[in-house]
């Protein structure tokens, strides 16, 4: 059936049923069912829902008991014949209205609606729809960036997001920090993976910044200390010392030095490697502030960090790490080439964006 005819039939049935005369209403219902069965089965979709039928029965019963004079009793409830008939006609009206409105709605194709909007001088609505669909994935990036940039309340973060989106609408780019995570239980090889990544990218002449954690062991093979080793200068600094059950004591100075390394390297590196984020960082201590400062000041940097598994959930939300970008040694074994390729693709993507902005 032609869309115009469909629209006209739907409208005609709607008008007939609204007049409220009983015989035309019955004819309209039968006609709409015939039209639906013959040309447009979508008209029956709405009445397939149980809620529709429950309400139909409910209306008929209520009309029977509340409208008109009582004529008989059903399970002790006074029912009026007149009321039941009124209820049935209410349902006939509702059915026909549903059928005819669906018929009208299906006759209005997207193209036709767009033609109408253009006719009324709203030709930019179509472009706005397309633009909105393109923007959908960017909203997530903008929210990510706003959260990192704004340390205040949630309302401040939302306000920041809105400013970002407004800037974007006026032609600004939405930048995004990409953090890749490596996790696994103790001794699973997280630091080794970081070193592998560093070597791999250095071999490819990429500028690698950041540091890794080196375990210092005594003659008995027990860990007695941890050092931070700077990739660029090979300098090392004592991070923590300790032995036995007393655990390790962290040196606050090492975090300051690490923050400085990160701040300097972020300006001159393609990729920043951080080993590792754990209990302290999950509480906003340790490397947390240094790393967040780097992210705020260098929103386009690519970061690969190791995360302690028992604190992964908290750390992932603090540093906005996504599950797609996380490599779990416990599940996947030793670092795969696939993960390295993922990082490489991001670096290439970033380089392409840099070229475009130039």
């Amino acid at each position, binding site marked *: 059936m032609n869309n115009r005819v469909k629209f006209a039939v739907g409208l005609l049935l709607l008008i007939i049923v609204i007049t*409220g005369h009983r015989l035309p209403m019955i004819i309209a219902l039968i006609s709409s069912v015939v039209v639906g069965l013959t040309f447009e089965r979508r008209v029956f979709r709405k009445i397939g829902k149980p809620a529709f039928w429950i309400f139909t029965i409910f209306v008929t019963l209520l009309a029977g008991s509340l409208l008109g004079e009582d004529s008989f009793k059903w399970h002790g409830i006074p029912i009026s014949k007149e009321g039941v008939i009124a209820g049935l006609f209410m349902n006939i009206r509702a059915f026909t209205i549903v059928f005819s409105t669906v018929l009208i709605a299906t006759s209005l194709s997207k193209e036709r609606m767009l033609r109408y909007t253009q006719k009324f001088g709203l030709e930019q609505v179509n472009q706005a729809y397309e633009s*909105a669909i393109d923007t959908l994935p960017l909203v997530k990036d903008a929210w990510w960036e706003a959260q990192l940039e704004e340390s205040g309340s949630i*309302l401040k973060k939302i306000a920041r997001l*809105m400013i970002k989106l407004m800037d974007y609408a*006026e032609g600004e780019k939405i*930048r995004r920090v990409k953090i890749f995570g490596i996790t696994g239980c103790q001794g699973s090889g997280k630091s080794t993976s970081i070193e592998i990544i560093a070597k791999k990218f250095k071999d490819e002449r990429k500028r690698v910044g950041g540091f890794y954690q080196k375990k210092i062991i005594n003659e008995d093979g027990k860990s007695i200390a941890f050092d931070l080793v700077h990739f660029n200068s090979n300098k090392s600094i004592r991070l923590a010392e300790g032995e036995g059950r007393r655990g390790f004591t962290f040196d606050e100075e090492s975090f300051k030095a690490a923050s400085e390394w990160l701040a300097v390297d972020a300006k001159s590196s393609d990729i920043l490697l951080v080993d590792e984020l754990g209990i302290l960082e999950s509480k906003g201590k340790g490397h947390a502030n240094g790393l967040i400062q780097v992210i705020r000041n260098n929103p386009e940097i690519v970061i690969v960090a190791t995360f302690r598994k028992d604190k992964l959930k908290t750390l992932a939300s603090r540093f906005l790490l996504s599950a797609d970008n996380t490599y779990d040694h416990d599940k996947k074994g030793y670092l795969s080439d696939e993960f390295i390729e993922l990082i490489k693709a991001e670096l290439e993507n970033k380089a392409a964006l840099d070229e475009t902005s130039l």
Partner: protein
Amino acid sequence: MSKKSKVEKSSNQTVMWKQAAVFGALWGVIEITIGSFLHATRLPSGIFLASTGIALLTATQMLTGKPWMAFRIALVCAGVRALTPHGLMLGPMASILLQGLFVSVAWILFRNSILTGIVAGAFATISTQLQSFVVKLFAYGVELLEIYLQLLGKAESFFRLEHGQGWIVIIFYFAFVASIGIIGGIIGHRIGWLALQMISERSKSGATPE
């Protein structure tokens, strides 16, 4: 109109529609994610979504300072909403458009005053409740109104209330519904105010956006 002013007008219109597209996308994301969640939890999603929508629209209307911006955003969001797996749903789309209309009109009347959020919020959440009633009334006819009134009378006698006290309960219900919208409006006003402050600080410091 001179050629130059025509070009300027067209360029302004483009920026306005771009802004509407961006904020419409943001609202669309909220509608799809929070809406699906609320729908799954069987909570009254319409009221809470309307309140969230009002918060967003009030903030955006304040931030952009352009008349009818909220309505433009609503137009875009209604279009985005139609792309969800549920497809074209006239009820939610009408609700979104009404919210845009309320915020736009309230902003024209009260500008950046908190009244914009309060008035628009109250109207928006109440309208979500009235909308379903009006749709049912249209479908089933005026007899439905008679049934509802009779039910109200029966409920009054069942709960041993005096004649007319049922209406007070209904008014209280609508006041509760309106209060949810008002909270959304106040939050939106706060976000808008914070965003305007951030922009003013940015222009004082002379920093360009990013």
